C-alpha cells in the first residue's frame, strides 16, 4: 500500500466572479522513501495540491471532492484538531520564500522550539537541544549562536536551511517542498538539493518536490507528475517521462527549454498561446487550445488517464488514436517506444 494516496481530488476557490477550479481531478500515489516531483507552470495547481494535502487552504478555497489517504487514513473531512496531529508532525512543508514564512519578531530558536514542543512531549530544555541538533544537521555553523538570531540576520540560503530544520524536527514521513530553491542562486540551490537528498536517505522519508524547473526534477526525483490547468497530463518515473514523453504538453515543455549541450545555435520551439483561464475551463482537454496536434475529440471530451508503459500514465487522445495505451498496467517486460 502506498503511503499517500490521492484520488480524484477537486479543489476550488469560490471567488466573486465564479468558481476557480485550481485542482481538477488529480490522482497520484507516493511510496515510502521516494522523491516525487510535481512540475507545471504558475496556475497549474501544484501548490494548491500541497495545500490540499495539508489542509491549509485559505478561504475562499476548499476541497470540493476526492480523497487523500495517508497510511490508509482518510484526511479529507477531518477536523482541524485531528489534522493538526498529522500536519507538521507526519507531513510537513517548506515554502518557497523563507523570508515571509519565518516570523521576523521571534528568534530562530524560539520558532524551532515551538514546532518541537507542539508535536513532542519534550520540555523547553530538551526542545532547545533538539533545535541545536537540527540546525547542525542542516549544516548551519555555530548553531548555539544562531539560535538566538532573527531571520533578517541570516542569508537566503541559511533561512531555507532553518525552514528545512523546522520541517524535519519531528521526523516527518513526508516532506512537501514547495519551490524550495526558486528564490535561491544556483550554487545555493545545489547545496540545498544535496542536503535534502542526504537527509531523505538518512531519515527514510518521502519528498514531494514542487517546482517549475525540469532540471531540478531530473536531478533529484524518482517519479514525476506533469500538471496543466489543475489536472495531470502524465505521470510516471522520471526516466519514462523524460525519455518517452507521451503528452504534447510535456513534449512542448521539453522543446522550449534551452539545451546547454548544443554547440550550434538551435531555435527554441515555444508552446504557442497562453495558459487557460481557470474560471472558464473548456469541456475537452485543457491543453487542446494550445496543442498543435489537437483533434476534434480533444476539444469535445476530456481524456482520462491510460497506461502507456510499466510505470507511466498519460491523459492524451493521441495515444488512444495511435493504439499506444492500455486500460490496465502492461505486463513486465513491456518496452516503451523511444521518443
Amino acid at each position, binding site marked *: 500500500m502506498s503511503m499517500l494516496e490521492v484520488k480524484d481530488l477537486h479543489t476550488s476557490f469560490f471567488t466573486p466572479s465564479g468558481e476557480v477550479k485550481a485542482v481538477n481531478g488529480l490522482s497520484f500515489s507516493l511510496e515510502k522513501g521516494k522523491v516525487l516531483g510535481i512540475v507545471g507552470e*504558475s496556475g497549474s495547481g501544484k501548490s494548491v495540491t500541497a495545500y490540499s494535502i495539508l489542509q491549509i487552504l485559505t478561504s475562499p478555497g476548499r476541497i470540493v471532492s476526492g480523497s487523500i489517504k495517508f497510511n490508509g487514513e482518510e484526511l479529507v473531512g477531518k477536523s482541524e484538531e485531528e489534522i493538526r496531529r498529522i500536519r507538521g508532525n507526519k507531513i510537513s512543508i517548506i515554502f518557497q520564500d523563507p523570508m515571509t514564512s519565518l516570523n521576523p519578531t521571534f528568534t530562530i530558536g524560539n520558532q524551532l522550539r515551538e514546532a518541537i514542543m507542539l508535536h513532542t512531549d519534550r520540555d523547553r530544555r530538551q526542545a532547545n537541544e533538539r533545535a541545536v541538533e537540527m540546525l547542525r544537521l542542516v549544516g548551519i555553523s555555530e548553531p548555539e549562536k544562531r539560535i538566538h538570531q532573527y531571520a533578517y540576520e541570516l542569508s537566503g540560503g541559511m533561512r531555507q536551511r532553518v525552514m528545512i530544520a523546522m520541517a524535519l524536527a519531528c521526523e516527518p514521513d513526508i516532506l512537501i517542498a514547495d519551490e524550495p530553491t526558486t528564490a535561491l542562486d544556483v550554487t545555493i540551490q545545489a547545496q540545498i538539493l544535496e542536503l535534502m537528498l542526504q537527509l531523505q536517505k538518512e531519515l527514510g522519508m518521502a519528498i514531494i518536490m514542487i517546482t517549475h524547473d525540469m532540471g531540478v526534477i531530473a536531478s533529484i526525483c524518482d517519479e514525476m507528475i506533469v500538471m496543466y490547468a489543475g489536472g495531470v497530463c502524465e505521470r510516471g518515473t522520471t526516466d519514462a517521462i523524460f525519455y518517452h514523453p507521451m503528452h504534447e504538453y510535456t513534449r512542448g515543455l521539453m522543446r522550449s527549454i534551452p539545451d546547454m549541450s548544443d554547440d550550434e545555435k538551435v531555435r527554441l520551439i515555444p508552446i504557442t498561446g497562453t495558459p487557460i483561464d481557470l474560471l472558464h475551463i473548456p469541456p475537452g482537454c485543457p491543453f487542446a487550445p494550445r496543442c498543435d496536434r489537437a483533434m476534434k475529440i480533444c476539444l469535445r471530451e476530456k481524456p482520462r488517464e491510460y497506461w502507456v508503459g510499466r510505470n507511466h500514465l498519460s491523459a492524451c487522445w493521441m495515444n488512444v488514436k495511435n493504439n499506444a495505451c492500455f486500460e490496465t498496467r502492461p505486463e513486465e517486460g513491456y518496452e516503451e517506444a523511444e521518443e
Partner: protein
Amino acid sequence: MTAMPNKSFAPDPACLVQVSHLKQYFPISTGFLKTAQLKAVDDVSFDILKGETLGLVGESGCGKTTVGRSMLQLYKPTAGDVWFDGQKVEGKEALRAFRRRAQMVFQDPYSSLNPRMTVADIVAEPIDVHHLCESKKEREERIRELMTLVGLNTEHATRYAHEFSGGQRQRIGIARALASKPEFIVCDEPVSALDVSIQAQVINMLEDLQSQLGLTYLFIAHDISVVKHISNRIAVMYLGHMMELAPANELTRHPQHPYTVSLMSAVPIPDPRESRKQQRIVLQGDVPSPLKVPSGCPFRTRCSRATAACKETCPAMREISPGHFAACHNI
C-alpha cells in the same frame, strides 16, 4: 576579438559599447554618523561588438544589474568611462543622444509599467521625450508599428497594463525600449519572471528583433542555460568583479576560473541520465557581504585552489587563450 580590459584605452570601431574601469560605489549608513562604501561594481572593463549579444551572469548581489544601470548612466558612475560608437559618453548633449540610442528592458513586467498609463502612452513615452514624431498621426502609426513588431494586438492600445499577462507585459516593455529606435538594449533579466513556455516565446522574439533591426544586446540573467542560448559571449561576475569572459560555448564547456567551474557544475541538467553523471562542485558557505569584500581575490574565501598570493593581490583579467579572459592567479 577585443576586450582588453587592462591595456590603455583606445576606441575600437568594431565595438558599439566600450566600458573601461567602471566603478560604482554606494554610500551605506552603518550606524550613527557612520557610512561605508558598498562597492557594487569595482573596476569592470569590457566591450560589446556591434550586433552581438554579451551575456552577463552571476549570483544575486554580484553587481550585474548595477553594471547595466551605470552603463546607461542611470546612476552616476563613481569612476570609469563608457564609450558608445567611438564617442565618450560625457556632457549633456552626448548623454541625451546616448539615451535615445541605448535603452533598457526591465526584469519585473509588473512594476516597470505605470498602472495609470495606457499601453499606447507607455510605448510612446520615449517618442514624446525625444520628440521623435512630428504629428499625432505619425505618433499613432509608430505605436501601431511597434505593437505589431512585438506581437501585440493593436486593438489593445487603449488598455492598461494590468489587463495583460506577464508575457504580454514584457512585450509592452520591449516595445517601449524599441520606440526610440535604439541600437543597443540592456535586457535586465527579461524572462526570469515568466513561465517556461512563455520564456521561449520572448527569447525567440528578442532574437528576431536583433536580426531584423541590427540590435546589440547586453543580456543580464542568472539562468545560465538561457544566457548560453542567446549570447555570443558571456561574462561572469562575482562580488562586483569580473571573473571570466569568453565565447558562450567555450565558457560553458571549458570554464577556467574556479568560480565559473563551480557555477557551471551547479546548473541542473534537464536530463536524468546526464544529471546522474554530473559532478557537482558544491561551494561551501555563502557569498560574503559586499560591504566586507575579502582582500585580494574576492572569491578566495570559497575557492578550493586559493593560495597565499590570492590574499595579497586581486588578480587582473588576462587572456588565457584567444578571446578567453579570466582573473585568477592559478590558471
